[in-house]
């Protein structure tokens, strides 16, 4: 199994997928909401599950966490057969739904105590765990506030903290950044990345396609079917020209730089200001060659342009519609 690049995770690829769905199907009468969906999620990775409202996304998640029985197919989460043991899986995982489930009228701390009770976390163990989470998620000042008074960003972080209270190995987050401002969205993704770095597997859905770049893997669903399923890097390679690298060079260096870069292969353009080359991925060979070129010419300025994820997914949809 290909290990995602650029993720900085230290999980051995041979551990096997921690979430596995095969041939997952859900029909409501005549309507097929999810159609023969198969996905695998590697441990300690952030798996982005993307799709518009009505694409089958929510139905899929509900099946994955044992809230809905599939019509066909199999699901395994952290070694548990979800179809046979739906309640067991829900005790085992962390879940954060679209509307953060904090009880109004209770303070944040009271919510923590309530959820801790559900998970069987008490006493010293709870104190330590909540203390650590409170610190890491910057929730310190807000414990005593009524949950309905918490601003959106803090609510989101609180929701995430509660979902990890019992230290599950797998987190399911359903649109965790909806309704949150850009600043808090960024903070939130840092927290998710920290969790993954610590070995937690995060299955996350989002409407903000650019958030795919925070993740190790992206699966795009449309009309109940998977239409893209790969690393962000590979999606960029397949559905865009990749990366356009521009080197702005002082006079006299253009020829030499162009000669070095031509080793990469691929379209190379000479411009008034320097050299431009388009590469499908930033693989080691490409990076090494670029580094040689810029080391030979220290005044070179590098600019790299890449397609936005929105454009990439638009292309995925267009090509799927064409049947390519």
């Amino acid at each position, binding site marked *: 199994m290909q290990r995602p690049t*650029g993720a900085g995770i230290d999980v051995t690829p041979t551990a096997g997928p921690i979430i596995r769905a095969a041939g997952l199907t859900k029909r409501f009468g005549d309507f097929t909401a999810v159609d023969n969906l198969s996905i695998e999620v590697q441990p300690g990775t952030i798996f982005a599950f993307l799709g518009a409202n009505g*694409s089958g996304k929510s139905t899929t998640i509900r099946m994955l966490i044992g809230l809905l029985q599939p019509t066909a197919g199999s699901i395994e989460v952290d070694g548990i057969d979800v179809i046979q043991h739906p309640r067991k899986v829900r005790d085992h995982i962390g879940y954060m739904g679209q509307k953060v489930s904090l009880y109004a009228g209770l303070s944040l701390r009271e919510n923590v105590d309530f959820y801790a009770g559900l998970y069987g976390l008490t006493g010293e163990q709870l104190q330590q765990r909540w203390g650590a989470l409170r610190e890491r998620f*910057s929730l310190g*000042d807000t414990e005593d506030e009524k949950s309905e008074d918490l601003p959106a960003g803090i609510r989101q972080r609180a929701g995430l903290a509660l979902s990890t209270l019992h230290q599950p190995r797998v987190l399911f987050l359903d649109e965790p950044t909806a309704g949150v*401002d850009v600043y808090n969205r960024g903070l939130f993704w840092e927290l998710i990345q920290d969790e993954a770095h610590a070995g937690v597997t995060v299955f996350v859905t989002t409407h903000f396609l650019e958030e795919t770049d*925070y993740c190790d893997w992206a699966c795009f669903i449309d009309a109940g079917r998977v239409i893209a399923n790969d690393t962000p890097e590979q999606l960029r390679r397949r559905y865009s020209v990749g990366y356009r690298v521009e080197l702005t060079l002082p006079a006299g260096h253009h020829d030499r730089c162009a000669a070095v870069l031509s080793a990469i292969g691929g379209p190379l353009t000479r411009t008034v200001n320097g050299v431009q080359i388009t590469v499908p991925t930033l693989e*080691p060979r490409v990076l090494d060659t670029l*580094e040689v070129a810029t080391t030979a010419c220290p005044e070179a300025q590098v600019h790299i342009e890449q397609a936005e994820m929105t454009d990439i*997914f638009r292309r995925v949809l267009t090509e799927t519609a064409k049947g390519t």
Partner: protein
Amino acid sequence: MTDLASGKSPGPHPEEAAEESAAPEALIRLRGLRKRYGRRIALNGIDLTLEGRQIVGIVGPDGAGKTTLIRSLAGLLEIEAEEATALGHDLRGDVTAYKAHVGYVPQAFSLHRDLSVMENLRFTARLQRLPPQDFTQRSKELLARTGLTPFVDRPAGALSGGMKQKLAVANALLFRPQLLLLDEPTAGVDVMARAEIWAMLERERAAALIIMSTSYLDEAEHCDQLVYLDGGRVVATGTPAALRAGVAIELYRAWGDNPRGIAQAARQLAYVDGARATGRFARVEVRRQTTPGAARVLHDLRALHGAGVRFAEARPLDMESVLLALASSRAWQPASTQREAGNGKDAGRSR
């Protein structure tokens, strides 16, 4: 680089002849607009003047008051204000006549699910007393533009999310309103329909004042003007370019094999405000007050060899930086100490 509607680059909108050349330009003037729901203060003194034919984007986090502001402008709420004038009408008074000039698309689909596409449009036309010939022509035009012509007889409830929203927009445009209000019209809509809806709005830009709330950065970028709301107040307004110019941040990218490691290392640099891994690079923000200058920053980033930095570049500010700067400048106070009439600006920063 990115264009929502087509391959063309947007640029400033041209002064095309408006379809409604006789209609006066929409003018909205709000001073001290307040709205409270029981104990909760949704709008805490909005001061805003909007005029001309353009697309105005209302941005800000959930709970900022975006929906309440739009609903106030739609004449749906009882409000308090020192002044609240729209299209020459006082929003604090009888808004019946006013609403005939306003198209409104709420966040949730609010058309009749069991009526067909055409029946929905006809229903609206009747409510608006649109003359039959106008209706025939206008509906044909809008159906063609939305790609809904093949679906005219389909019940609205059976349309996909994107098509529902397109129908809602077409419905609001039926009687050529001077003012078009949309509350997150593309939220959760598939990526193709989002572009199509945006294209529809761009076409109307020369004919109406369009005010829409959005949480999509690419849509905010393409608005003529932005209004940033937080805590029920206007924090900032301006063109995207003007707001960008006011952001005292420098943006860099450090590329390498281990963007998360790079982000962590970059955060150790004293002058770095924030660094985050995304894709194959770390996005690094430096506050202008503390920057040692681009040359030094680039040098320091490149020197993070241990973290695997291969190149660093200086970047022009993007909408994310702008909204980040606006979001992090707001202060949050616990409810227990919140002052009702306070403006929140002088409370301390919370990070």
